Structure formats: structure tokens, C-alpha cells
């Protein structure tokens, strides 16, 4: 069936050094690098991290088709963010760096300054360097290993198991949705854009209500099945999919820890601030 291949994250089992790392390692590295990039406003450092994260993305052999949609969303987000931050605070760069080099006056007293350009480019590069790391983590980690790593960094296992369960039952609910929607269309429900806007909401309810009722049946069954096999008995649980730590895992953690420390050191010892200021 076509529904068989539906997956929320199109997690693919490819054998690369990145896939072989334990989910916990990848989560720790992701957090280290994210903190590093979030802390620093030094574009040289951020570009270095960005180069690193794109190298890792290549190593993990993620295909562009897998991430195309995410890339589009991210691009839209970054562009909107860029425009909005400029119009809300066009002088924020000047405030940070303490100098004002006008490139051109746009209109009224709004001017484009070198400081603002540097500040905004730095900020967008931060996003652009962290997001590939997130994609790598999601796409190279088995979903239930993902749940197990969340629980190992302190998220309660009941919460992290919810993630795994969502992934498990999402395709089922999706299939239910399709069946219900087709059956309702056969009765005459119009889901096309031809229907009036006010009707469309009412029409959506005609699918959602049966979906809720059939999902409630499912939830009762799942929770019974879980109770009967001792879920929630103790404060901790182990994970079948947890990977054992290997030398590669320690290496990866050490590398990302070093990058983190290096970033912080650059800020403290070289820039003596979170910002890199080429203007003075």
C-alpha cells in the first residue's frame, strides 16, 4: 500500500559515520554547536561553524529531495526575519558597534549602515549554520533512538516516548483520515476550493469528528496494551534501540566541545565581547 511508505521524518537507513553515531552523541553535539553559534556574534567564527556543519551534512549523504521543503521554509523564515528586523530597528547595528558608517540613505531618516549590514548578516548566518545541524540530527537518527536520547538528557521518558508513539501511529491516523475523507466525499462533501469559505470549516468538522472518535478507540487500545506490558512501572526505563558509545562517539563529542570552547574563548580573549567589532 502507498501508506506503507509514509514517514514523518524520512529517516533513511544509510550507513555513514554520522548514522553510526549514537542518537545521544548527536544530540549532545547539536546542543554544543548550537550554544556556540548562539553565543557568538563573530561572523568569522560563525562562518567556520557553518562550513563545518555543511561538511557534516555532506558526510551524512542526505539527499536534497529529503530536505527541499525544509530548506524552502527556512529560506522564507530567514528572509522575512531579515526584512522585519531591519524595519523594526534599523539603527540596532549602530547601537551595538558604537560607530555609524552610512552606505546610503533610503528615505526620511532611515539609512542603511555598514554596522546594520554586518549585524544582520551575522544574525542570519547563525540561523543558517544551526539549521543544517538540526536536519542532520533528525534525518540520521532512528525515531525511537531519538526518543531514547531525549530521555537520556533528562526529558522524562513518558514525554519522550510520546514522540516515538506519535511517529508510530501518525501513518495510521493519516490513513484513517484519507478513508474518512473519501467516504464523506462520496456522500457529497465538497472539499474543493469551490465550496464557500464558511462551509469549508463546517465540512472539515465532518471529517475531524469521525477521526477523533476512531482515534479514541485506538488510544484506549494502545494505553491498555502499554499498561499490560508494564509501561510506567518505574521511574526509569531502558531502550532497545539505544546505541552503545564507541570511540567515534567520544571523538565527535570532544570535537564539538572543542568548537564550543574555542568560540567562547574567541569572545572572551580576542573580542572581549560577544561581538566582533571591525569598526574600531
Amino acid at each position, binding site marked *: 500500500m502507498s501508506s506503507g511508505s509514509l514517514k514523518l521524518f524520512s529517516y533513511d537507513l544509510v550507513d555513514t559515520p554520522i548514522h553510526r553515531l549514537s542518537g545521544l552523541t548527536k544530540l549532545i553535539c547539536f546542543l554544543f554547536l548550537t550554544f556556540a553559534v548562539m553565543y557568538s556574534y563573530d561572523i568569522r567564527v560563525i562562518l567556520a561553524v557553518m562550513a563545518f556543519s555543511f561538511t557534516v551534512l555532506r558526510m551524512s549523504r542526505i539527499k536534497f529531495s529529503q530536505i527541499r521543503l525544509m530548506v524552502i521554509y527556512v529560506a522564507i523564515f530567514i528572509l522575512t526575519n531579515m526584512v522585519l528586523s531591519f524595519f523594526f530597528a534599523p539603527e540596532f547595528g549602530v547601537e551595538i558597534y558604537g560607530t555609524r558608517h552610512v552606505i546610503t540613505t533610503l528615505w526620511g531618516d532611515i539609512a542603511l549602515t555598514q554596522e546594520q549590514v554586518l549585524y544582520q548578516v551575522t544574525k542570519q548566518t547563525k540561523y543558517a549554520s544551526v539549521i543544517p545541524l538540526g536536519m542532520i540530527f533528525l534525518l540520521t537518527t*532512528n525515531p525511537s533512538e531519538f526518543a531514547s536520547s531525549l530521555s537520556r538528557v533528562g526529558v522524562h521518558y513518558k514525554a519522550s516516548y510520546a514522540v516515538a508513539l506519535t511517529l508510530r501511529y501518525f501513518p495510521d491516523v493519516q490513513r484513517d483520515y484519507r478513508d474518512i475523507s473519501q467516504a464523506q*466525499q462520496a*456522500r457529497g462533501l465538497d472539499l474543493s476550493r469551490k465550496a464557500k469559505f464558511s462551509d469549508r470549516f463546517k465540512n472539515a468538522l*465532518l471529517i475531524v469528528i*469521525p477521526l477523533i472518535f476512531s482515534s479514541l478507540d485506538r488510544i484506549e487500545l*494502545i494505553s*491498555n496494551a502499554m499498561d*499490560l*506490558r508494564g509501561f510506567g512501572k518505574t521511574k526509569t526505563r531502558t531502550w*532497545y534501540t539505544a546505541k552503545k558509545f564507541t570511540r567515534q562517539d567520544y571523538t565527535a563529542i570532544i570535537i564539538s566541545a572543542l568548537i564550543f570552547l574555542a568560540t567562547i574563548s574567541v569572545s572572551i580573549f580576542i573580542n572581549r565581547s560577544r561581538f566582533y567589532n571591525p569598526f574600531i
Partner: protein
Amino acid sequence: MKKQPIIAFKNFTFQYFSQAEPTLHDINLTIREGEKVLIVGPSGSGKSTLGHCINGLIPFAYKGEITGNLTIKGGNTLEKSIFDLSKTVGTVLQDSDGQFVGLTAGEDIAFALENDNVPYDPMHERVQRVAEMVEMDNLLGSSPFELSGGQKQRTSLAGVMVDDVDILLFDEPLANLDPATGKTAIEIIDDIQQKSGKTIIIIEHRLEDVLHRFVDRVIVLKEGRIIADMDAHSLVSSPILTDTGIREPLYVTALKYAGVDVTADMKPGYIQTLEMDGSKASVAEWHRRIEKDQRVNTNDSILQMEDITFSYDGTHPVLEDINFDIREGEMLSLVGKNGAGKSTLSKLLCGFEKENKGIIRYSGQDISDLTIKERAEIIGVVLQNPNQMISKPMIYDEIALGLRFRDVPEEEIKPRVEKVLKICGLSPFIDWPISALSYGQKKRVTIASILVLNPKILILDEPTAGQDFRHYTDIMEFLVEINKLGVTIILITHDMHLMLEYTPRAIVLSSGRIVADTSASVVLTDCDVIECANLKETSLYNLAQMVGIPDETAFVQAFIDYERRLKNR
């Protein structure tokens, strides 16, 4: 030496807080270590409730009042938690898909161990060992979407055996399985018991299918009371089954039709043990006397598929070269194992999916250009689960929905809804909320909501799944009534009894092709078709062989004809 009792109910009564009457009355039942016990009873007899008491879902998940006591392995269950009980009682629920909580078979088997904090290495070792016992060791990495119904059930079984429980409780293990997989499931359960000596409790209403292998005792529940506790031979030869509304094995029905007095001495509990030397002659004589049913449907063609080919992805055909011709007023079944293309076929008929090649004709007209909505006025489809179709709180509104979508004036809607309600026997409930209806009544509401559009053809997906004999008969007789009104009915089903009793014709699909399009009696006696459609030969076939009737198909057909005449009288 008598074994120790492992489960003991003593004057046990249970009443759900939400119910006015107790569901279980004064149960006294002892099950000993290593016994294999079958619990049967119609829907609402309390058999699932009894199972819930044993595995601890009562009182853990379902609250109610308990009097008397239940001891399991010497301890009173009221003093144990559901978690303690799960170490003694392993439960396999009826929906092997819904209870599959892991993302892969391996994870699902390991679930109980994970919750017990078993470390990585011993966990993997135990999962591997148990998976070998149920022959799932090569599929540990598979997701539930890649597994068949039978493989999912093996996974569920391994998932409870991994805990090394003493008692295995199966709650309607056959409900969602096709006949061949169900037969294998009963064999696996039996083999496990032979090897491990565990206590086995099977709750089921499909008696004949469970009696494919030996059981120590059968317990019959009716209205919350135990009305029989005996071996299979005594039960089958007593009137208890007919009185409680449980279907007796078909070969027993045939023997009775032939005027044979079925006694416990004949060992009639299992077809393998049946001794009938004294009664062969009367069965053969009965067979000779039955007149052939000569009626043939000679109506015009109503629905035709011509060279239909379809694939979801353009490379793997789900349906290939499908050709059939259905006559007006036929009632036929569409069978085949999961994934054979049955639901896809019905989707093409309704216009949910578009065929890649071929023509669908209704009364000779090509209907390719009709929209889903237009086709629905010719071909109506009823989903298996009524909850997937019901979207209005009131019965009247639910049935009127399709007409309102078509802007039929309200003054015309009323008489049409009332007429359909009458046909469906729902008139007394016209002002009722749907939530107050039973499952069978909800099923009728969904059928009514489709019938109100006056379709000429009705497709029903497993209309009787999970229903006991009485409800099954109710639903099917209701469909027969509708069929008599001239509606052509296509039933997508796994149920061999349904095929035999109600549909003279069966179309069998296997891997997207039609492998048989003939009478049900031929399908259920043809080994090749049986094998590729995951069916099981009917016990009437075995009976014919035992009696020495050379043409087994003719015997099965004679049985069908006889029974139809009996019903029409």
C-alpha cells in the same frame, strides 16, 4: 497427579460503575497449571470482562465493584498491581496492529523488558531467543507496515512471552485474521503450550476455528454466568451452543441435517477425532436426496470492469487485467488476502482512485467521467468501522447528510429518511442520539446513510467483522432483505461462513489478479485458490471425504442449497 490451581474465581461478581447490572455473576472457576482452556460466549456475555479481571485491566483501567475473590498464583488480585500481574499473565489483545507500540518488531518484543530496566545486552539476547521461538528472528528490523497480520500477531505473542509469564491470555486472537492465518495462529499457540507447558486461556466466539487443535476444557458464558464447563466432545453434542447463540462446527450442523444423532461417543469436538462409521450411510443418503438449486441470475449486467490495470506509483501494479461482469441483483463476495487489491478495487469503483487502463461500465455506460459524488448515487460504500463514518450526533441528521449535500429540499428529505429508517429497522430510534446505539445499530445507521441516496450497488467492507453469531445473522439477514429490494451487493470479506451461506458467487483476488470467479462452494474446495487467497478449506469438505463422497464440491453446494431452502421456508 493433579496440578496446582493457578487461577481461582470464588463467588466472584463484578459490576462496572457505569452499568446498572453486574456484568459477571457469581463466577466459580478454577484453572490449573498447564491447562488449555477456551472461553466462549456471545457478545455481552462477559467473556472479555472475565479476561480483564485475569490480566488486571479490571480494576486498574476499568473501575467497578468486585465481590467474592480471585486468586492468581495463590495471591488475591486485589492486592496486586497490574504490573505485578503482568509478570504472571501475558495478554495478547485482539487487534494485533493497534497494540504494536514499537517502531519495529524487535522494539515491540522488547517493550516489557525496557519497562523493566533490563540492560542492553541481556535485552537483545532475550528478544533474539523469543523471536526465534515464534520464527520472527529475521524480521526484527521490520516496521509494522511491512508485516502481515500473522507476523504482527507473532510479534505480540513474543512481546508477552519475553517476560516468561506463566499464563498466556488470548483475547479474541482470530478476530482480525484471515482464515489461513487464524489456523496458523491456533497451531502456534498449541505448539508453544506443548513446548513450554504454560497455562493457556483463549477467549473467542469462533469455536470451530479454535477447535482446530485440542483444548482441555471449554467454558461457556451467557449473560455473565458460567453455563457450561466441559470437554469439547460433550459441548458439541449438547444443545448448549444453539441455545447460547454460538455457531456450532459446520460438520456438526451437516450431521444434524442428515438426521444423525450427534453424541459425545462420536468424539465430535474436533473433525480429526470424529468417529462416524455408523452414520456415513445417512449422510450419503441425505446428500442424494437434496435437490439442486436451479435458479440462475439472468438479469442484465449492472457493473463491468474491462481490462482494468492500476498502480499507485506507476511501476508496481496493484491491480492487473481485471475483468468481471456483475448482474443486477447479485450478492457476491470479493475475497483475497490483505494487500491482494480488494480495497483498491472498491476505490476504483467509487472513483477515489483513477484506473490507469481499462473501462468501468455501469449498465453498459462508461462511467469514467463521473465524479466521486455522482458515482456515489450509483455505487455506495460502507466502511468497516462505523465510527469512521458517523459525523452527526443525531440519527436523523446523519442519514439526511448525503441528501442535504445534494441540496434536496427538506420536505423531500423527510419521507426519504423515514423510508430508509423503516427498511433498516431503525424507525423507533428516529429521535435518538447515535451514541446511545449498539455497534450493530450503528452499522445499520451507516448503511442507511448510504442507502438514502438510492445506490444501485452497495459495497461493504467486512460488514460482520468481530460480530458474534447472532449479530452476524442479524446484519446478514438485513443485507439479504436489501438485496431482495433489487440492490446489488458486493461484500469484501475473509469470512468463509459468510461466503458459503450468503453469496452464491465469489471473486478471488491474489496479487492484483483475479484467480477465481465462480461459486463459493468451488472456491472453498479448491486447494490452489484456498492457498493463494489465504482461505481454509471448509470442514464440510473433510466430512465429504470421510463419508466417501467423491465430489466434495457437490456436497458443499448441496449443503448450501439445503440451508437456503431451510431459511426461505
